[in-house]
């Protein structure tokens, strides 16, 4: 480690890599230098002046947040002058602060309080009138109380740099400076609430949490968001069996502190008034509340009766239920109900990817890879809306490591602003796969009606916004060439520069892309359901032809979509992508067939209009709500939601994480427990084994390929599964794969029951 710079901080020898800031070097060495505006990962401000330190040979105090370490540097952080600087900085800060701590949401976890307690003075010499402006509501989620604001600009930066949205700015100047939203009096943004969480004081507060509790009254439970497949850890603050807030301030999980509106606020479906709290049974054609005992007995009798009569079963599983539940369900179906009619709504063709990757090692990317790898190719998806964490990771990678981003998408995407090349493919998302597949060798035989023949407004390359005036000369179409090759400067987000003249036509743009990719040292390819089956195979061949190491992420929609595939809620496979060797019906076939029993666990396959024709069979539904499917059921068993149970889920990148029960369910039961009770009622429980999540997980770890993840890794973090070690060698069914492409404010059926998702203006503005 000869490269380390040696310096002294408070007499203690410290070593740090060149370029390290003194504030970080001190932190690593266990010394805290206070700061408000310094925030790891965001641009430097040097605005709060709290981190002033004494440095030998420097004439005045220096900000530790902007000072890189230097060989032989002698830093002192606790001298009388430094202490005085901190003390009076806080005195300055508090001159216009309202000091309304007793009623402030932040009271108790406020950085200004903590700093004042530790470094400040007990009394203020300030006797003048304070600047006051009334509190403003920017959105259902975001409230702003300007007098409390200390202007650390964290909110502005997290929104502009972290999210790439730039919805917050600073207006006016001097003591009148104020944080302002992008639409004059309100915000139009992702409504992610990152600005609120990052606020060191109570200036930005959340409409969901404000005035609900004092922070110390809450219990905190770190679990996994119930919505999309990114698998963000959200720490739920609960009190009296209620969830009061969600955040992830301890930066645990695959997401660090990142959360979108869903992870931070859309837990609220859990106490939606329409939550089912008692089992329902069809009596005289109508669903009526019954006891658990009666409902379970009815289900067990029907299952046993149908088995005895040699009747037919169909089982539809969920994208949301835990791995343990999915594993138990498929085992139940296959071993007890003796059926291979088991399926779920497939949202990404993971099986085809695994098939195409046969024989390759370490070809599946993690969420961390998107932050670390040198280049990322995004195919099809509008990542910022559909997979906000993955988008956040790629953006942070661009900012911190100048990673090169490439986007080939049907419509404009946020990545355009900082990608090296953005290419628009026309028509439906499905075109992406076909078009890119054409590139190697220009094998266009079957695709003559494809991109080349595209109608006006179809495939094309993005009009270059840098061309300036519309009359600017040059090709009508040119790839957007952002500052991705430049500095990672976040100002580039809204103002690309370093324009390269790009190829003027679509095929040439794709060829240009290919040449650029070949020059990259490595690549992560993120693709959505516009690639499935053979397209994925061709994509992998395309990537192989680049001659660089490539990792993949096959996008799937929901919190455990990946786990549902891994646990084989499909007729083609057994858990771990072992071929089942048995025929079995898919979702549509089960709905169409006249099965004697249809058992739907946490899914809503009948939500499409017209799917409401109920067959003659007996329908059992486990769900939180009376969905379209549940309304058709003979028995509805109220299920606990993700925040009311334990278990594991596997995210889009195949990383397994633990769900932890945050609140108790009123009347409902976790699906695993419901299934266990049914088994017990049927008298088959022993054959299926115990239905405790941890014990089922043990079985999964022992038996499912790729899931032999180390237990300690699961205790606190995420562990990526390694499912590929040979061909899955089974038929995949690409035509069944269909992503719902939920945006930021949609979340399938579940999203309907979140008040916050439905309250924001942007929900109505979005597609």
């Amino acid at each position, binding site marked *: 480690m000869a490269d380390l710079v040696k310096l002294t901080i408070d007499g203690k020898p410290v070593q740090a890599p060149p370029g390290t800031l003194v504030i970080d070097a001190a932190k690593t060495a266990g010394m805290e230098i206070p700061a408000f505006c310094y925030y790891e990962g965001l641009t430097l401000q040097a605005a709060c002046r709290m981190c002033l330190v004494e440095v030998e040979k420097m004439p005045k105090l220096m900000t530790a947040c902007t000072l890189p370490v230097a060989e032989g540097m002698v830093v002192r952080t606790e001298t009388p002058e430094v202490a005085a600087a901190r003390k009076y900085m806080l005195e300055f800060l508090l001159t216009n602060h309202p000091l309304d701590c007793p009623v402030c949401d932040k009271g108790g976890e406020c950085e200004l309080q903590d700093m004042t307690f530790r470094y400040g003075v007990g009394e203020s010499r300030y006797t003048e009138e304070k600047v006051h402006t009334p509190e403003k509501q920017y959105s259902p989620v975001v409230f702003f109380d300007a007098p409390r604001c200390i202007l650390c600009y964290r909110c502005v930066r997290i929104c502009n740099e972290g999210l790439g949205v730039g919805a917050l700015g600073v207006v006016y100047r001097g003591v009148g400076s104020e944080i*302002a939203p992008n639409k004059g009096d309100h915000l139009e943004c992702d409504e992610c609430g990152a600005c609120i969480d990052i606020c060191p004081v109570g200036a930005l507060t959340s409409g969901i949490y404000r005035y609900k509790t004092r922070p110390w009254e809450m219990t905190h439970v770190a679990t996994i968001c119930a919505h999309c497949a990114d698998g963000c850890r959200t720490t739920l603050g609960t009190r009296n069996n209620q969830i009061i807030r969600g955040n992830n301030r301890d930066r645990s999980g695959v997401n660090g502190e990142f959360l979108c509106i869903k992870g931070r606020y859309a837990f609220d479906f859990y106490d939606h008034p329409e939550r089912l709290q008692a089992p329902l049974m069809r009596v005289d054609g109508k669903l009526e509340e019954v006891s658990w005992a009666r409902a379970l007995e009815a289900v067990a009798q029907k299952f046993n009766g149908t088995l005895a009569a040699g009747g037919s079963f169909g089982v539809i599983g969920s994208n949301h239920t835990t791995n343990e539940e999915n594993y138990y369900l498929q085992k139940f179906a296959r071993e007890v109900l003796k059926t291979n009619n088991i399926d779920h709504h497939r949202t990404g063709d993971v099986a085809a990817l695994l098939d195409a990757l046969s024989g390759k090692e370490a070809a599946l990317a993690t969420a961390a890879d998107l932050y670390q790898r040198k280049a990322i190719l995004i195919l099809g998806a509008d990542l910022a809306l559909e997979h906000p964490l993955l988008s956040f990771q790629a953006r942070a990678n661009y900012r911190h490591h100048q990673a090169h981003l490439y986007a080939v998408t049907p419509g404009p995407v946020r990545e355009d602003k900082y990608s090296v090349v953005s290419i628009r493919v026309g028509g439906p998302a499905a075109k992406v796969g076909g078009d890119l597949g054409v590139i190697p060798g220009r094998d266009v035989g079957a695709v003559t009606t494809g991109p080349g023949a595209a109608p006006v407004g179809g495939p094309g390359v993005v009009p270059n916004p*840098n061309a300036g*005036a519309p009359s600017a000369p040059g090709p009508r179409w040119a790839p957007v060439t952002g500052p991705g090759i430049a500095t990672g400067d976040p100002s580039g987000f809204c103002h690309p520069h370093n324009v390269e003249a790009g190829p003027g036509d679509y095929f040439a743009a794709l060829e240009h892309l290919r040449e650029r990719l070949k020059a990259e040292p490595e690549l992560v390819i993120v693709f959505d359901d516009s690639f499935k089956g053979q397209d994925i195979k061709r994509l992998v061949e395309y990537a192989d032809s680049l001659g660089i190491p490539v990792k993949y992420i096959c996008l799937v929609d929901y919190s455990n979509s990946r786990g549902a595939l891994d646990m084989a809620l499909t007729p083609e496979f057994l858990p771990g992508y072992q071929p089942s060797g048995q025929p079995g019906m898919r979702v549509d076939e089960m709905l169409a067939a006249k099965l004697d029993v249809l058992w739907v666990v946490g899914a809503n396959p009948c939500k499409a209009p017209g799917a409401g024709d109920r067959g003659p069979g007996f329908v059992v539904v486990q769900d939180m709500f009376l969905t379209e499917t549940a309304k058709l059921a003979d028995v509805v068993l109220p299920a606990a939601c993700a925040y009311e149970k334990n278990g594991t889920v596997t995210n889009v990148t195949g990383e397994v994480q633990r769900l932890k029960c945050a609140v108790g369910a009123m009347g409902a039961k976790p699906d695993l427990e419901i299934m266990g009770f049914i088994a017990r009622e049927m008298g088959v429980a022993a054959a299926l084994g115990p239905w405790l999540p941890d014990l089922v997980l043990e079985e999964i770890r022992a038996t499912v390929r790729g899931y032999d993840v180390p237990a300690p890794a699961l205790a606190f973090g995420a562990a990526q599964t390694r499912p590929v070690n040979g061909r899955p060698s089974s038929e995949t069914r690409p035509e069944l794969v269909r992503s719902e492409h939920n945006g930021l404010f949609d979340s399938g059926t579940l999203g309907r029951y979140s008040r916050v998702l439905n309250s924001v203006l942007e929900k109505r503005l979005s597609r």
Partner: protein
Amino acid sequence: MTFSPQLEARFEKLLKSYPPGRQRSALVPMLLYAQDEVGSMTDELIDEVAQRVGVTPLQVNEVLSYYSMLHRKPMGKYHVQICTNISCLLNDGDKLWEHACKRLGIGNKEVTPDGQVSLEEVECMGACSWAPAIQVNYDFHHFITPEKLDQLLDSLTKKQ
């Protein structure tokens, strides 16, 4: 939004004055010149300029609210700016200011009811050696006494 040919020509010249991809550099002068023609920073103007230089309206708002010469509300046809900073103060700029307020019956950044004259107490305008100084729109007037101010205001109001 349409502007006069002169302003359009000014914009075109400005947008070509900076390196490629740096059109944003034209923002501050564009806003000032546009204000001269439009009268104030209207929402429409903000959106238009934002679009022309390739930034968001919020970014324009951040910028315009920073600069003291840019106003969200219209000033008078004759915007009388009186410096009361130290060199002018030592030559009774403050008394000149009070005189102007009394004479016009308006205060800082206010406009006479007929919209003709507005007043602003400004910071140093770079006329310290010829104090007290005022600016009417962009025109400097040096060594101003209350009498001279009266005469000036009279001539302005007569001009209309």
